[in-house]
């Protein structure tokens, strides 16, 4: 027996020595001092340093005009700029253009090119580059590339005219005072063929390298036109396989910034990292297919609105964070958003039952909620909803599908009963509302209301600001009154940030702006 034990001890010793050898020099790593770092936020920014940002999706293209995924755009925001770009308050500020003017009738946009602005390859930006970039995104080039995403909103551009060396004029087919929100599309060098492999833009960082499934690395653009920015010398966007792996890497210190924490992960990281809290700027809703029975009956849709308790959903899936919404818009659209619509359908299961009775469904009904399985947040929400609906006699089932399946079956072919997803929108109120146009390609809820169509047309065309705001509020009210879907919340965005860093800023659009992040002295 003793001999056996000796052997075992020896073996364990050998294995642990072998394993210890693997750890190499890492033991000597000095732990950075943790106390009081929160008090140091007020200290001044330091220039230099490098940061690793964890991202969950691989990039779908390095060419900004071909990139589709929100996960790609949020990264490319650091490399490319449009004529204008969004700031943190949701305003559009001049970028490649130093100035712009919109004609009172909303038909002509005139831009002045910023003086001395250069591309990352050292060449000066010209009005020809602007003309090329806008035309490429509007589908106006003679030689079309089918993988360039032509923006439906930009196809309203009739012509792009070069006025002089520094002035470009966009002439529209129809009056539209909101086009500026779409002119954040990247300005790229004319006829540059390597955009997909060696992208060149005008942003605060320039491209260094990209390895599929590993990372994209960018470095400081020393000629950036904003004085003192960016602070960091190098940023690595590291592609992580999933949130669990990212969570491990955050704890190990391989990632400095990670923007998609779950509520429970955020709680565990408190103390070791700073947790920044913002909004995802999404409309998360239980979208109902308005053409499929029984959701073609407004009473059934309203019943569902009464039967779902949004606050409980927030408490269960988001730790009580997030903002409840009552229509297809979120609070970041400060000027247009109608908050009182949140109270139209208070939680009232009795009323829901009464409405179901009126609709001829006193015993409830059965339906399936199709949810893309890669979004755990939506799957969790679905689970809470299923439980809540049981109280009014409706039995819902959850049908988890892959993202690609969701895109083709739910979003494109509209073969579904209900689904949960988060819709994003650009900095133009139109982008949030125009999918409910009865003829819209992306009207996947099959909403149809002629009054809505007419109001939307008016909202887009009008040049009077008050009338515009009024029209958009009317649109929101119509959606809520018709109970087009069950609008739930704008989910919280929880970002883990290394305590040595400061300056992380939330935007009303989905971007990771690294030019404002800095190390604390």
């Amino acid at each position, binding site marked *: *027996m003793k001999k*056996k034990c000796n052997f*075992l001890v020896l073996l364990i010793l050998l294995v642990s020595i072998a*394993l*210890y050898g*693997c*750890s*190499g020099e*890492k*033991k000597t790593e000095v732990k950075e001092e943790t106390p009081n770092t929160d008090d140091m936020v007020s200290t001044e920014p330091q220039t230099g340093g490098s940061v690793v940002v964890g991202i969950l999706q*691989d990039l*779908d*293209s390095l060419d900004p005009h071909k990139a*589709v*995924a929100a996960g790609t755009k949020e990264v490319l925001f650091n490399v490319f700029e449009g004529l204008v770009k969004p700031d943190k308050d949701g305003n559009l500020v001049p970028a490649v253009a130093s100035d712009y003017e919109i004609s009172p009738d909303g038909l002509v946009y005139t831009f002045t090119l910023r003086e001395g602005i250069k591309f990352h390859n050292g060449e000066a930006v010209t009005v020809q580059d602007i003309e090329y970039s806008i035309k490429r995104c509007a589908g106006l080039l003679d030689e*079309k590339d*089918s*993988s360039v*995403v*032509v*923006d*439906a909103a930009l196809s309203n551009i009739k012509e792009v005219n070069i006025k002089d060396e520094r002035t470009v004029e966009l002439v529209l087919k129809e009056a539209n005072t909101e086009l500026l929100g779409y002119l954040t599309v990247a300005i790229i060098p004319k006829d540059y063929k390597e955009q*997909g*492999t060696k992208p060149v833009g005008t942003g605060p960082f320039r491209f260094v390298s990209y*390895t*599929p*499934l*590993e990372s994209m690395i960018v470095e400081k653009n020393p000629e950036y036109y904003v004085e003192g920015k960016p602070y960091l010398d190098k940023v690595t966007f*590291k*592609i*992580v*396989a*999933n949130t*669990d*792996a990212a969570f*491990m*890497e955050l*704890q*190990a*210190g*391989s*990632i400095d910034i990670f923007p998609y924490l779950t509520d429970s992960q955020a709680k565990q990281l408190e103390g070791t990292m700073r947790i920044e809290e913002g909004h995802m700027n999404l409309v998360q809703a239980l979208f109902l297919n308005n053409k499929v029975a029984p959701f073609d009956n407004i009473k059934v849709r309203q019943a569902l609105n009464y039967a779902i308790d949004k606050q409980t959903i927030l408490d269960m899936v988001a730790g009580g964070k997030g903002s409840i919404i009552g229509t297809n818009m979120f609070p970041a659209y400060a000027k247009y958003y109608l908050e009182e619509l949140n109270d139209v359908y208070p939680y009232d299961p009795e009323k829901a039952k009464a409405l179901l009775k009126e609709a001829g469904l006193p015993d409830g009904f059965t339906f399936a909620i199709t949810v893309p399985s*890669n979004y755990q947040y939506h799957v969790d929400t679905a689970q809470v909803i299923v439980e809540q609906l049981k109280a009014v006699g409706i039995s819902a089932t959850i049908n988890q*599908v*892959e*993202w*690609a*399946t969701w*895109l*083709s*079956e739910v*979003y*494109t072919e509209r073969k579904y009963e209900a689904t949960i997803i988060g819709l994003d929108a650009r900095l133009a109120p139109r982008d949030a509302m125009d999918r409910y146009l009865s003829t819209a*390609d*992306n009207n996947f809820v099959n909403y149809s209301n002629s009054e809505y169509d007419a109001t939307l047309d008016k909202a887009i065309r009008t040049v009077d600001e008050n009338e515009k705001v009024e029209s958009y509020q009317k649109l929101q009210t119509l959606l809520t009154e018709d109970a087009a879907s069950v609008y739930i919340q704008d989910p919280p965005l929880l970002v883990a940030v290394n305590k040595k860093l400061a300056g992380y800023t939330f935007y009303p659009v989905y971007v990771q702006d690294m030019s404002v992040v800095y190390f604390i002295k």
Partner: protein
Amino acid sequence: MKYIFKKIITLIITLLVISLLTFLAFQIIPGDSALTALGTNATKEAIDALREELGLNEPLFIRYGSWLSGIIKGDFGLSSQYNIPVSSLLKDRFIVTFYLAVIALIVIIVLSFPFGILTVKKEGGFLDRVITLICQINMAIPPFFLGMLITLIFGLILKMFTPGAYVGIQDNFLGFLGYLFFPAVAIALPKAAMLIKFLRSSLLRQLKLDYVRTARSKGDTEHQILYKHVLKNGLIPVITFLAMMIADVFAGSIMIEQVFSLPGLGRLLVVAISNRDFPVVSAIIMYIAILIVFINFIVDILYQYIDPRVRIS
């Protein structure tokens, strides 16, 4: 010779069937690459144009035919997601998975042979029972969970490696191997446990055969019996088992690459499937299929030399 010829024919038919299945599977699952590539803001015209360009509107067999002839020429086409040739995309990922599998196999062999023989020597004893129990536990834990446990214990608590600090093979070869070691262990442990159990039962079966009694009466020591006779005969089924395990190790790496964020073939496969990137998916599946079919082929051939009885049947 006839035997080898027969095997080669089976090999080609197997690969053809696999290629057909891969192709058909992709036609059946919903979702298409044009739609996934252009996303939610795309117009109908744009999707149609891209479908046309990717050749998705051609009839089924024409697509299968042109795809197959491409493969035979070694041309897997362009990745619809990354827009670069599939072969260059695969090359770098393959190296990662290859090293991961090799390290895992070494760990499996290094662990299982000594422990397997030990359990036979101490059959029914305390050590035998402890090892069998540990094996049982290891086989029961799913590899991805084992991967997470290893990251937690060795990465975060003992700090023997930094999770996520993967270094490329071209940057630092030793660092690269070092980072792969723990993922490889996560793959290897359940497999090693299986091999230990398999080896144990195979050797014990041999020990009960008549020739062992003969050897004993001849005056051989237990040591001689085990190493000179039993091990040789007991290894034959183990070799087949090992060959099958290579396939398992590759399959296991798909999961483990997700847990450790390794940029290998497995992760590429998962990403490619969710993006409906058919050229990449088909290339990886064919790659793995060819590898496994060839390993089995070689094992079949080797078998003849180890055990002449195979040739007769």
